[in-house]
């Protein structure tokens, strides 16, 4: 067969293609890869195979669940059973005080360095984030994390309409490895709001839709972490959306990017 490009650049194409699939390329390189995909059938075939592999891995590789016994053994590393609680002595307090001071300094340096004040400001959004994370955790403890189970957005959207007389955009991301699992209703700040539930392998991603209130940016926020859960928020057409999950931050960012892309088309 004819090789359209030289051997070494073929290798480079493969690396770029992998980086493209992994969302690791900058915008210019993305365009470059997409142009190449249009004109190069072999590359396109490889691209399709990589995508298939990814979705097979996402759907077929089950997540690991640590046994209660292992969990207990690990928790005991930091909290040995039968350890005597030593009453606080003055030197102990002093040491702790120093550490707190050092952390405050580190935090101040971080804030100054990044110019990010959002998590220090007393805005209602931060309180929402805390409430959203605890609701997500509660939902995970329930028998199912949704009130209506459906992978069909044409079922989920009308359900919200009938329950709440409002419905957020519901998009289908199964092709990207984030199948829709259903929806539930959550009470946030005294108001009932819709929550979309997606799956990523055995992980659950909740997307909370809050009708527009305060001012914040349209672009997705940087992921915030609370109690091991990541939260990303962004502004949609009529709602502010919050995605929360215990998947990796990069996966959640990927999810949010796909979600917003899909939402534009509706």
């Amino acid at each position, binding site marked *: 067969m004819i090789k359209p490009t030289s051997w070494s650049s073929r290798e480079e194409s493969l690396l770029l*293609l992998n980086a493209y699939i992994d969302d690791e390329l900058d915008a210019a390189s993305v365009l470059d890869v997409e142009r190449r995909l249009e004109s190069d059938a072999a590359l396109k075939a490889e691209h399709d195979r990589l995508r298939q*592999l*990814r979705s097979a891995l996402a759907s077929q*590789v089950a997540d*690991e669940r640590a046994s209660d016994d292992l969990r207990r053994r*690990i928790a005991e590393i*930091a909290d040995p059973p039968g350890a005597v609680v030593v009453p606080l002595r003055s030197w102990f307090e002093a040491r702790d005080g120093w550490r707190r001071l050092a952390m405050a300094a580190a935090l101040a340096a971080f804030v100054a360095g990044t110019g990010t004040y959002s998590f220090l400001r007393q805005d209602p959004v931060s309180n929402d984030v805390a409430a959203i994370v605890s609701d997500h955790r509660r939902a995970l403890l329930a028998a199912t994390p949704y009130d209506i189970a459906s992978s069909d957005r044409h079922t989920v959207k009308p359900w919200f309409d009938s329950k709440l007389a409002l419905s957020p955009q519901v998009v289908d991301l199964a092709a990207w490895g984030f199948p829709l699992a259903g929806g539930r209703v959550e009470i946030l700040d005294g108001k009932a709001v819709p929550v979309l539930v997606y799956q990523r392998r055995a992980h659950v991603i909740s997307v909370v839709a809050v009708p527009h209130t305060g001012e914040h940016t349209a672009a997705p926020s940087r992921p915030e972490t609370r109690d*091991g859960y990541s939260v990303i928020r962004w502004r949609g057409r009529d709602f502010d959306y919050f995605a929360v999950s215990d*998947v990796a931050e990069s996966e959640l960012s990927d999810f949010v990017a796909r979600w917003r892309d899909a939402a534009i088309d509706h």
Partner: protein
Amino acid sequence: MDDKQLFAEAVLPHVDDALALARWLTGNLTDAEDVVQEACIRAFRAISSTRDANSRAWLLAIVRNTAFTWIAKNRPKVMVMTDDEGTFERAGLEMVEPQASPETMLIEKADSEHLHKAIAALPIAYREVLVLREIEGLSYQEIARALSIPIGTAMSRLARARSLLIQRIGMAGTGKAGAA
């Protein structure tokens, strides 16, 4: 925040992911549990000195290093192949010839057992990169940092790992289609 709280926030939420990585690296659950427990002890010792923003990637790096220590001690043969890095990295990073059309490629339909076997059969240097990316969802940079390798090396190992998987699964797929 005391060490116990730090441990509860930085380590405990990621025990399942730690176990998954350890299981893929050691090949069985019992050894994986031992590795995770040992890794968590190491993590606790280091907890007050770490300020890694991404506690998950930090813990997974510790699990990976603990697993390698364990493998070096218990399965020294597995480690041999990381010698001769240069030729190893360049070996066969070529595209699978597109002789099989997408219709006959049964990658998407590969069952879970088949897929597990194919991943487990990958050389460990490829397997760990694949698992960190596809199953643990780490970024290229996080993978490079966890493995202490240049990002370019992480990229070529990942590309190679995927090519190998596609070849193995795809071949079995076309075989099955041919028999049908």
